[in-house]
Each structure stands twice: as structure tokens, then as C-alpha cells.
């Protein structure tokens, strides 16, 4: 596409605006994370004397506000990984039934997954809190994992189902003639074929639980039990939080999701888009 005259000006103007709008908050977050404590209250668009001491402090846990950073990182990782594994199991099994076996109840199950996907997760926060208290699960990672599974598996089933439908049924029939039972079909034929969609779902579930704040803050307490976002939220309760350390922690916490998004964005988007465009 070649542009001339005022169209070129408008086009590049719009691109420039979008670039600044998108990047500025991120740029400023990184800038702040490189600022020394004594420069923190002199706002500036660039860092005159950058330092990595905020990162060092966070990783070495040598400031009282990040004293349990590595434990909290571990908590975040464990919760996200266990959620992802569970969602993959639930999602692949459910989508196999919906996409490959004709049976009664398909419509009901598809409506209920859609319902769970759409309802805002916070609406169930109070009864969930009560339920976890009754089950004596408050404060455990399991409580958060269960809720994350609840809100991510409907979408997982939905996307995997959509993808599984594209696999031609003749493959199943041919395998059935060769004497393959449903379990063989599932493991040997279905799973390898839907692998790209599984990558998208795993990324989605991992990021959903990695990013979760509300349920983590409701269920978890104590410096060594909470996840990173909860710890970052707790910063705000202190009188004068050191924002440069907070921003260093923010950058560290954002790196895994950003890497995942950029590695798998094609997978993620194709799934999301096919779900939405239809």
C-alpha cells in the first residue's frame, strides 16, 4: 500500500499516537524500576542514573517488602501449573465426548459451559468463600486452584470442541474398524490431532491463574502463602511504598506472561477469534 499527501500524514500520525498510547505506561514502569530511591520523588521521563539494584533487592529478598518474593513466585507457578494440568485433562476428555461421540445431553452441556464462561467470576466470590470455609480449604493452594479450574475449563472445552469438530470422522471410523476402543481413539488419534488447540488452552489457563487477583486475595493469607499479585496489592496498605521496588517486581512478574503471549499468540488468537467470529 502506498500513501501520498495528507493520507500519509494521517496514517503515520495515527500509528504514532497508537504507539505512544500503548508503550508509554510500559516504558514508565520500566523506567521507574531503574530509579534509585533518592530520585523516586523527582519525576522524569528518563532515568539519569539507572540502577538495577531494585531487581537485585527483589531477587535477593533484601527489602522487607519483597522478603518472601521467591516463595510467592513458587506459589504463583504451582497454582498456575496445577490449574493448567487439570484444565487440560477436563477439557480434552469433555471435548472428545462432545466432538466425537453423538449422545444425549450435548446441548445442555454446551449451554452450561457457555454460562460458566460468561458469568463474571466475582459474582460467585462470596458463596465460594463460604464453600471453601466449610470444606476447611481456606488458605490452601487447592482452594484457588479449584476456582481457577471452574472458570477456565468451560472455555477450554469450548475451544477444544470447536477444534475437535474439524477432525474428519472417517478417521475414527477407520480406527474403529481396526478394533480401536474409545480410549485408544482418545489417546492415539484425538489427542495428537488437537495438539495445537491444547497449546492455546494451556497458555490460556496458565495466564488466567497467573494473573488472578480476587480469589487469591480472598483465600490466601500470610506472607509465605500468598501469590505475587496479592503481595503487590498488599504494598498499597503500607504508608510509603517504595514504588521503584514495586515496579521492579511488576516487571519480573510480567515477563513470563509477555513471553508466553508472544510465543503462542498465533495459537491464542486463532482459538479466541474462531470462537468469537462465528
Amino acid at each position, binding site marked *: *500500500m502506498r*500513501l501520498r499527501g495528507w493520507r500519509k500524514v494521517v*496514517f503515520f500520525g495515527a500509528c504514532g499516537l*497508537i504507539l505512544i498510547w*500503548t*508503550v508509554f*505506561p510500559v516504558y514508565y514502569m520500566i523506567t*521507574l524500576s531503574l530509579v534509585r530511591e533518592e530520585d523516586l*520523588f523527582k*519525576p*522524569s*521521563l528518563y532515568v539519569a542514573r539507572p540502577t538495577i539494584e531494585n531487581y537485585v533487592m527483589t531477587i535477593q529478598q533484601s527489602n522487607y517488602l519483597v522478603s518472601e518474593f521467591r516463595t510467592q513466585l513458587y506459589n504463583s507457578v504451582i497454582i498456575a501449573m496445577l490449574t493448567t494440568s487439570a484444565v487440560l485433562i*477436563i477439557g480434552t*476428555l*469433555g471435548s*472428545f*465426548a*462432545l466432538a466425537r*461421540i*453423538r*449422545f444425549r*445431553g*450435548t446441548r445442555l*452441556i454446551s*449451554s452450561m*459451559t*457457555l*454460562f*460458566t464462561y*460468561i*458469568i*463474571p*467470576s*466475582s*459474582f*460467585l466470590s462470596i*458463596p*465460594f468463600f*463460604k464453600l471453601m470455609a466449610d470444606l476447611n480449604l481456606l488458605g490452601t493452594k487447592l482452594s484457588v486452584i479449584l476456582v481457577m479450574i*471452574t472458570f477456565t*475449563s468451560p472455555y477450554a472445552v469450548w475451544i477444544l470442541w470447536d477444534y475437535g469438530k474439524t477432525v474428519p470422522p472417517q478417521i475414527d471410523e477407520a480406527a474403529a474398524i481396526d478394533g480401536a476402543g474409545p480410549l485408544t481413539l*482418545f489417546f492415539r488419534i484425538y489427542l495428537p490431532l488437537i495438539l495445537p488447540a491444547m497449546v492455546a488452552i494451556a497458555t490460556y489457563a496458565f495466564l488466567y491463574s497467573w*494473573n488472578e*487477583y*480476587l480469589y487469591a486475595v*480472598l483465600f490466601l493469607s500470610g506472607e509465605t502463602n500468598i501469590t505475587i*499479585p496479592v503481595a*503487590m496489592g498488599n504494598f498499597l496498605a503500607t504508608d510509603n511504598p517504595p*514504588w521503584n521496588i514495586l*515496579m521492579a517486581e511488576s516487571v519480573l*512478574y*510480567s515477563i513470563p506472561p*509477555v513471553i508466553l*503471549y*508472544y510465543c503462542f*499468540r498465533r495459537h491464542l488468537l486463532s482459538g*479466541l477469534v474462531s470462537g*468469537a*467470529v*462465528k
Partner: protein
Amino acid sequence: MAQNIQATVISVVSHRRERWGGKTILGLAFCSPLILVFLVLVITPMLYMIYLGLDRTIYPAIFSDPIFIQTLWNTVIFVGVAVNIKMILALVVSALFSAEHWAVRILSGIFLLPWAIPSLPGILAFRWMLNGQWGIVNKILNDLGFAGYPWLVRRPSALAAAIVYHIWKYLPFWTLIFVAGRRSIPKDLYEAGDIDGAQPLQKFRFITFPMLRNLYLICSLLSMVFTLGDFVIIKIMTGGAPGDSTHVLATLAYRYTFQMGKIDWGVGTFITALPVTLLFIFILIRSVK
């Protein structure tokens, strides 16, 4: 003829029987983890919430709380303004991202950044940028010769900050959805438009928008339902301040339940929004199927 009908009836009956037979058991067995999650972790909390919400004395109590009424308005403003501005912007920006140009290819990679960064770091960065004393926004205003403004200390600007963050964070996602939507419009429609001498705005009005209208409405509705339950933006950006005047449903319910110990008020807050939410969900389920 009669034989034909008979054959059809038999095949239907046998088909029925089969669907109730081994295949149904097999299908339900594969779906059992999903069904279990749904029964235990969706239906149970839902019924429990409705049970708590049946207590009719809650509603006069919360409706006489001025903070609750203000929160309802805040939620309507937050959802209505943020989602609609974001969707219109996404529709406009998606035109730019549909263009074949080297600048667009570079930009579309960077453009995803807000969506990829988790909510908390982004909101915290916005909060510090808007700090009245040491924020960079006021610093820039001062350098340009304007007076600074205590953004997060006044209700309208604090709500506006939450709305701006919402748009910043979710604009990329919906833009990409609309880019995909635009790609699915058949090219020959535009070629026909070219032959008839249609101007760009006419092409948008008579081709693009009619083709995208359904997608646009579904996406807007979906985004509204999601945003209706938003907790983290207000909680981290303003914490409800100044003086509990910027709460939305979820943060007020949190305050009622976990800070004031009034669990029934918290439940009542969500129940109040439930009819609208369920109506939206019903429309969405109907239209997605």
C-alpha cells in the same frame, strides 16, 4: 411409500435407542469431570447465593445506603462508558490494522503489550503515573505550563482513570477480533463498491458495518458482562476512595462482606445486578448458538 416411512421410523427409533444406550454412557463418562466441576463449583455456590439472597430484609437496607446507590451509578458509568468507547475505538483502529503496510506489521506486535501484561502491574503503573504530587502526568502538565490535578482524589477523574486503564488494557484484544472479522468479509463486495465509485466512508457504512454489526453487538454485550464484575481495576486504582465514592459492585460487595462483616449485604449487592446479568447471558447464549 409405506415401507419407506416404516424404514424411517425404525431408523429413528433405533437411533434414539442408541443415543440412550452405550454411547450416552460413554459420552457422559468422558464429560463427568466437567459435569462434576459444574455441579459442585458452579451450581452449589449459585444456589447458596440465591438462598442467602432470598432474605427480603436485605434490599431495603442496602437501597437506603447512599454508597450503594452511588455504586450502582458508578458501575453503570464504568461499564457503559468504558466498554462503548473501547468498542468504537477497536472498530476504528481495526481498520488501520487491516492495512497492508510495514508500519502496521511492526505496530501490531507492540500493540499486544497491554493485553499481555497482567492487570496488577499495569494498574499500579497508572496509579503512580497519576499521583498528584509525584506523578509523571502532573509533571508533564507543569512543564507545559498547566497546573497539576489530584486525579485519584476526585471522584470523576478517579473513575475516568479506571475507564482509561480498562480501555488501554482491553483495546488490543477487541481490535484483533475486529481485524479477524474484517478479514472474513468477502473481497468482491469491496471490488463491487469500487466499480460503483464508493468512497471509503460509504464502503464502511454500506459494506463493513452491516457485515460486522452482529459481531460488534455480541462482543459489546460479552465485554459488558465481563466488565460488570470487574474487581481489580477499582480495587487497586482507587480502593473506592475518595470516601467510598468510586466503588463498583464487586469492590463494594467485598467491602460489605469482608471488611464490615455483612455477608448478606454483599450477596444482596450481586443479586441486585443478577437480573440484568442473566438477561445479557441469555441473549449471548442464544446468539452464539
